[in-house]
């Protein structure tokens, strides 16, 4: 597939994630949209890694060019997992204190 299609797809998913962060007011849904963004990026990285591999593969069938992209995706997933656990712990604390997960309640940074 021409690489542009993957780029468009990833951009679309990413911007849907951005809109989700801006529009939704439930903290958990916001968090989920962040995960969606991360996944869009992962997809694009893998597509690029295959793009580079394709160029090298045509020349040499045993090359491993482009493996960095996929390893990077791996680490992104690692980080996302850690982040989710900590983030959800925070949300639970928030719920315990205010009995709501409304993002608009978190305005202690006001003024």
């Amino acid at each position, binding site marked *: 597939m021409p690489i542009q299609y993957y780029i468009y797809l990833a951009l679309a998913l990413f911007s849907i994630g951005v809109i989700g962060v*801006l529009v939704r007011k439930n903290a958990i849904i916001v968090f989920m949209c962040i995960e969606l963004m991360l996944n869009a990026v992962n997809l694009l990285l893998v597509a690029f890694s295959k793009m580079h591999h394709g160029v090298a593969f045509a020349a040499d069938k045993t090359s491993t060019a482009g493996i960095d992209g996929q390893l990077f995706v791996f680490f992104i997933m690692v980080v996302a997992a850690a982040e989710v656990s900590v983030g959800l712990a925070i949300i639970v604390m928030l719920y315990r204190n205010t009995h709501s997960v409304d993002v608009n309640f978190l305005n202690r*940074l*006001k003024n």
Partner: protein
Amino acid sequence: MSKLVYLIPLFPLIGFLINGLGRKSLSKSAIGVIGSGAILASFVTSLVLFFEVKNHGAIPVQQLFTFIDVQTLKIAFAFQVDQLSSLFLLIITGIGFLIHLYSTAYMHEEEPQHFGRYFAYLNLFVFSMLLLVLGANYVIMFIGWEGVGLCSYLLIGYWFKNDNYNYAAKKAFVMNRIGDLGFLLAVFWLIVRLGTVNYADVFAAANHLSSFDITAITILLFVGAMGKSAQIPLYTWLPDAMAGPTPVSALIHAATMVTAGIYMIARSNVLYSMSHVTMNLVAIIGLVTALFAATIAIKQNDIKKVLAYSTVSQLGYMFLGLGVGAYTGSVFHVMTHAFFKALLFLGAGSVIHAMHHEQDIRNMGGLKKKLPITHITFLIGCIAISGIPPFSGFFSKDEILAAAYAHSPIYWGVGVATAGLTAFYMFRLYATTFLGTFRGTHDQEHHLHESPSAMTIPLIVLAALSVLGGLIGVPEILGGHHELHHFLSPVLTTEQHHEIEHGTEFMLMGISVALAAIAIAVAILRYSKKPEMADATGFGKVLANKWYVDELYDAIVVKPLNAMAVFFKNIIEKSGIDGVVNGVGKFVSYGSRQMRLLQSGQVNAYVLMMVLAMVVMLLIWLQEGFIVKTFVKLFN
């Protein structure tokens, strides 16, 4: 020898600085000595220079430095000592010294630092007046002109704790300033037309000016003289200026500052003689002022106010003399008037001092026994001002009247009538104050005593000068040589020599002397036994209220100006300018309040801003070329 010129104003300036800066640490006697000594030194130097000028003619112009140097306009700080200025120098420093001496005794009740302030201001005044007469061009004269106006303000408001005195000082200064505007405009006109303000250059180039220029310049200069020398309509400050100490009134408002206008016109006689319109204007205003002030004086009850109106009236005489071309006569009258008016003021001061600051003549009377020296000298002054020969006033006044007759008999008639009035009110003053019985309180009667010698010596000296001063100007028909006339002729080149028959001239003299004698007799008879104690009624009331001129000025000028000032303050200043300035501040704080709302603490808002910023940055980064091209097209 000619370098001595710098010393003349230098001594008073040093005196001013020492007394002014050291007034808190010097003793009263030290201050008095420094102040009077400075003027005495100037007097001695002036005397030396006077003889130099008398024997060898005018001293060349001494230039100190170039004061203003702009493109083609060069105005030098230069002194010119010729016959006219050397005469004035003598008058200023001589009488100035006597008054300084007098002040050491008159002001002895003041505290040292106020005493020092007084002498500092007096010295500064003499310095400014010397600059005025020594200047070799109109700009230096103007510096002195302004300086004496300033010192007049400072000295009138000397007792600054009294609000009324401060108003009087302010009035004097403001009216002076109005005149100064005319003076300045004349100077500017001269610069535009001739490119120079030096006396020598201006008078030499005077015929290059069109007659309109000459008339305008001379009238504008005369406006300045009107303010400084208290002619109609700018005269009302002089009576109010009596709020200052009496020696100040003697020096500034009798002998020197008010004569600055006369000096200026005498100096510019070349210009004035070229414009008949101005000469007529000067003569008429002088005449009207003389008569007007004399009528007011006959109903005044404050000893100093009578003398103030007398000064205004005599100044009117001097302007009359200038207006008919008798420049020498006017300068002569300046000199004699300085003598006897200073004498009269100092005498009045002596009376006030003895009466413990009582100034209403209705509370005086019979003082001739208790204050003998003051009495005799005051009487001499009164006779001199009334124009009785052989006292000095007769010669100078008569010269002016003769010149007025040569010009127009009507001028002479009004002048003689005013002379009669002068004699009348002066002797009314004399009789009410010194003759009859004492009408004051018992307390005052006990304290009556003659003044100390520091006050009586100047009185005696001035009395002698009043008697003998006329001898330098005895006209030919009475057997004299009129030395003053010969002395001043190199400067007063355009003097108009009147040709009157000897017979007519004798008759004129006789009429004026007779009129004066009759007025004196009437006054003494009327006022020596029973002075008028009640307030005036009818026409007398109008005179006593000074023809309501002050009220008129108040309504026409002061009230509208105040209203305009209130308008400016409330509408333009408060709403307009303050509104704009405060508005900027209010706008900034409003803007910052609105900006503060951005910090809502809402995460959503922050993320939104992040995204928007990203979008904008993307756009700018990617479409850079397009954006630059659009801006170039817009602004070219």
